[in-house]
């Protein structure tokens, strides 16, 4: 480290007092930096000086009574292998091999006594001091950043575990509310009239909505921590999609939207967690129905993926409002709440698509979207036949089914047709 901002400390190590005097003279001449000089005659003495008063630079001769300049460099070597104190070797011979060896060992510079000039010496030492100073700054900055990074990681872990606790704590009283509302509605504690029963069903439905949001929060935090486990079994995704379409049909009818199911070819069975893929499909369909006007159309299409088929592809296409182009790349981000400002308040937590993508990624598949304002949207995902088992959430397991970047965590999403 530089001792204050005043004068750098240079340690001169040479067995011969004449050599030390020469160096002293050279470093004190000229108009550049002025140095505080300290001197040592042996490697041991120099190491002791480096320990008690670390210099900003060491100028050492090669041959010393208790070793060589290279021994000094080796003894000063820090954890990165290079001495923390810059060392300039002053070689008595003009043997280039010593210079090469010294530089390899981590010397900053190697000067040859026979070609030595005051300017050359001052320049070498000034450079060594400056580089040493810069490297010191770099090390400090790196240590600071590493510390900050650790702090942030810990804070993030705290937040995640807080999510988890909050979600769990909220669930219990919510369950109690729901249970007792249903005990009342089922007349287990006396008769209720139809109006009262209808109100109790509103209580239950609100509990269920809140419960779904809490589950999303929990899943999202588990996905973030890589702690969400899926249980894949051989699954006919086409049949699953047909079931979900049937399930959502009443909602579509209510909104006056045509909800259709299409199958193309013979999609293979894929290893999938049926509950989770069901969840993804319900999410995509709910979004499509939510953002499509009465009279519009929502289509679910299931097709083989790849040639020959090595997966299945599901697309949910709507004739809805579409998504502003600038929002498309952010759709799968956690907490992203975009869509049309006209439709504000149709909210949710901004977790749905993020969870969908996380679940599809856990299955080894990928999600993509294309959309244009006013022309509707298409959300699609693929599920591979051969799911990579190792590393449950392997972000780079793209098997190249489609063009475009894979929407892994934080990656840009594959945007097609824009």
């Amino acid at each position, binding site marked *: 480290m530089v001792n204050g901002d005043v004068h750098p400390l240079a340690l001169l190590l040479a067995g011969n007092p004449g050599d030390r005097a020469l160096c002293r003279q050279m470093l004190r001449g000229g108009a550049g930096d002025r140095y505080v000089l300290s001197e040592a005659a042996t490697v041991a003495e120099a190491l002791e000086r480096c320990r008690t008063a670390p210099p900003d630079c060491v100028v050492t001769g090669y041959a010393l009574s208790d070793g060589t300049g290279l021994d000094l460099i080796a003894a000063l070597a820090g954890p990165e292998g290079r001495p923390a104190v810059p060392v300039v070797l002053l070689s008595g011979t003009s043997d280039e091999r010593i210079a090469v060896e010294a530089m390899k060992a981590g010397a900053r510079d190697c000067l040859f006594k026979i070609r030595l000039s005051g300017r050359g010496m001052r320049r070498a030492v000034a450079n060594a001091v400056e580089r040493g100073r810069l490297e010191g700054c770099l090390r400090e900055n790196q240590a600071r950043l590493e510390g900050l990074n650790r702090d942030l990681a810990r804070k993030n872990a705290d937040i995640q575990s807080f999510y988890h606790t909050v979600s769990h704590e909220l*669930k*219990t009283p919510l369950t109690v509310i729901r*249970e007792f509302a249903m005990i009342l509605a089922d007349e287990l504690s006396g008769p209720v009239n139809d109006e009262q029963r209808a109100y109790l069903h509103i209580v239950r439905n609100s509990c269920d909505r809140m419960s779904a949001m809490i589950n999303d929060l929990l899943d999202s935090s588990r996905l973030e921590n890589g702690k969400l486990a899926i249980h894949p079994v051989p699954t006919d995704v086409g049949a699953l999609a047909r079931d979900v379409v049937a399930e959502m049909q009443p909602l579509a009818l209510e909104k006056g939207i045509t909800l259709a199911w299409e199958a193309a070819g013979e999609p293979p069975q894929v290893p999938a967690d049926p509950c989770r893929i069901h969840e993804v499909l319900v999410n995509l369909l709910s979004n499509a129905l939510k953002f499509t006007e009465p009279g519009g159309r929502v289509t679910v299409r299931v097709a083989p993926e790849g040639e020959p088929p090595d997966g299945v592809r599901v697309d949910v296409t709507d004739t809805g409002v579409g998504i502003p182009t600038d929002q498309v790349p952010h759709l799968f981000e956690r907490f992203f709440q975009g869509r049309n400002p006209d439709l504000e308040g149709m909210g949710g937590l901004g977790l749905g698509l993020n969870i969908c993508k996380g679940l599809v990624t856990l299955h080894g598949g990928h999600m993509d979207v294309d959309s244009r304002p006013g022309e509707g949207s298409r959300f699609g995902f693929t599920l591979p036949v051969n799911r990579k088992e190792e590393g449950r959430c392997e972000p780079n397991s793209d098997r190249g089914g489609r063009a475009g970047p894979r929407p892994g965590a934080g990656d840009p999403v594959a945007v097609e047709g824009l």
Partner: protein
Amino acid sequence: MEDEQDLALALAIRLRSRGYETVVTHDALMGVNMAVRNPPDLVLLDVAMPAGGGLLVAERLRANARTAAVPIIFITASKKPETKDRAMAFSPAAFFEKPFDSALLLTTIDAVLGTEAPVG
């Protein structure tokens, strides 16, 4: 534990409405004493109970000839595999993790009581 007691009450109301005589206790030792004195057809047991815990209750019930064969359904809030392993050592009739689907719990109870010969 207030919420848990409320949930236990809700469950008891449901069970009584299905015609089961239901006794609720929130204390492990009291539960063991009650079960031994008047052996039930089924014990619904929360692993995390005050005064000893559900596993201790299970141990005492299994050790007593009067209650050794009473089917046990465990309920736990713990996600730790060792909790489940320790509970499974008592060969329970079922094992539920919180939050559980109360409808599924009720049908499980129906199934256990329908197929198992009543004890005591």
